[in-house]
């Protein structure tokens, strides 16, 4: 019964995602802006030192995918506030299903949608000089799914404590942008001031981006086993936190 409930929540989100095909296309606008407006513009100035020999835009591609996953995950968890304000959550809450099933369903659907959106960013790879391999793409998709599990869990945990959309907007600005900038998405995490590297070390996105870079451009700064250990660990921890916070509601 509860697996079914997880499936129902997941299915609902995917039907809606599929219905809003326009959203799927517009979700590519932001990555395109980062890759082509920011990336191409900066590539004349940026000279990457060290082991990575590709172009700056190639370096950015996995990072921009990480960003896409970050935003997609957080947006899907915001929908739990939307559901609460517009009542649909209640329909779920009176159903014969545990509340945790609802949270799992939300996190899984968030991760599925984020993975799809992140994978779509790969359409830009020929234009930024990244050669795709089949296993590389699979690895990237797995990484994005895992990354999104933890980010969606984090998003729901924050969302359950929020009483309004405005509050969430605030969190987004204070949390998401720094998370993105300090993830190694747009510059390598080396030679940074100590405070920045400390923050980067506690940024979940940094580990996802690192693993994505390895999958797609064979470049990494942390050890891969650390990347995956952190991602799995955070996915478990944030899911548990989200579930217990959500259960406390009402």
């Amino acid at each position, binding site marked *: 019964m509860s697996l*079914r409930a997880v499936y129902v929540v997941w299915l609902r989100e995917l039907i*809606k995602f599929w219905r809003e095909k326009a959203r799927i296309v517009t979700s590519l606008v932001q990555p395109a802006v980062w890759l082509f407006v920011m990336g191409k513009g900066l590539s004349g100035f940026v000279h990457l030192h060290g082991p990575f020999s590709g172009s700056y835009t190639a370096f950015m591609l996995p990072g921009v995918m990480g960003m896409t996953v970050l935003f997609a995950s957080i947006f899907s968890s915001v929908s739990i506030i939307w559901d609460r304000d517009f009542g*649909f959550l209640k*329909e779920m809450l009176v159903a014969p299903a545990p509340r945790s099933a609802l949270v799992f369903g939300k996190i899984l659907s968030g991760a599925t949608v984020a993975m799809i959106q992140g994978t779509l960013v790969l359409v830009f790879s020929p234009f930024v000089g990244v050669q795709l391999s089949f296993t590389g793409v699979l690895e990237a998709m797995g990484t994005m799914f895992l990354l999104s599990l933890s980010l969606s869990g984090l998003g729901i945990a924050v969302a359950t404590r929020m009483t309004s959309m405005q509050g969430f907007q605030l969190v987004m600005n204070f949390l998401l942008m720094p998370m993105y900038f300090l993830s190694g998405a747009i510059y390598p995490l080396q030679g940074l001031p100590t405070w920045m590297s400390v923050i980067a070390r506690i940024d979940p996105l940094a580990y996802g981006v690192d693993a994505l870079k390895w999958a797609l451009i064979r470049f990494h700064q942390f050890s891969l086993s650390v990347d995956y250990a952190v991602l799995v660990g955070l996915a478990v921890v944030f899911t548990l936190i989200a579930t217990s916070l959500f259960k406390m509601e009402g």
Partner: protein
Amino acid sequence: MTNRVMIEARGLVKRYGDFTAVKEIDLEVKEGEIFGFLGPNGAGKSTTIKMLTTISRLTDGLARVAGHDVTRETDEVRSSLGIVFQDPTLDIGLTAWENLYLHGLLYGLSRTEIRERADAVLAMMELQERRKDLVKTFSGGMKRRLEIARGLMHRPKVLFLDEPTVGLDPQTRARIWDYVKSLRDENGLTIFMTTHYMDEAEHCDRIAIMDQGEIIALDTPDNLKRSVGNDVITLQTADDAQAIAALSSNFSITARSVQGGVQFDAEDGETFLPQLLARNLFHVTSLNLRKPTLDDVFMLLTGRTIREEDLGARDQMREAFRQRGNRR
């Protein structure tokens, strides 16, 4: 109506911090009964429904729905009840059919069962033709009907309706009432509803009047109205003085002269008036019989009318949202 108790509450209490929203409520609703919960906004009606439907925990007391304890047998209670909330809880980004389909899955129905029942409830609520349309294109009345349809998909034993007709036009309200009554008559469904429309409460078999977290009266609508006092009859006659004298000598009724005629109280106006007219004691040019209303009952019990209560900020938002949602 059978003798089986479908909803039972004993000493039900809900406290939010220092504020007690529901103060030791007792009630019992029988199978096949339409039970109305009447009271102004903020009286504790919705809070009580939330506790009975397992959404909100009881601070104290005991409640059973369809024979199951709401605290310990949550899933059993949830499977045996259907709810139509005060605020719309449909997913407007999905079609009518998808809303029903997901609901069916959530309640553990098989795909064949879902198909059959969705067809049946859509037909009953006269929504078959709109099944593939997105709910956001529905009118307020259609949405409400779809919510009721969805609430019936899993064949609940008890249907909770929280202000089911708020914000709907009179025709739609009347239709929803027809549906509700046929559900009770044909399926023996027990219906527990809240309303702050007095005229709607008349449809209920029994009514509990709630105010400030307490049930201040609980009886059939007729008995409640009778408790207020007698019917008031006003007559226009050719000769008021003669009429007053005749009433006094023939029925020992003390009538008073008011503007527009002669006025007096009668215990049962409907049977008294034909008797009076049959005797042809004086010429009556027009008559008016006013029965006590539930408004009078509420007024007598609380000293306020039910509509006097201002809408709180949240209610205003809700109304605004509802109207926005209904416009299309």
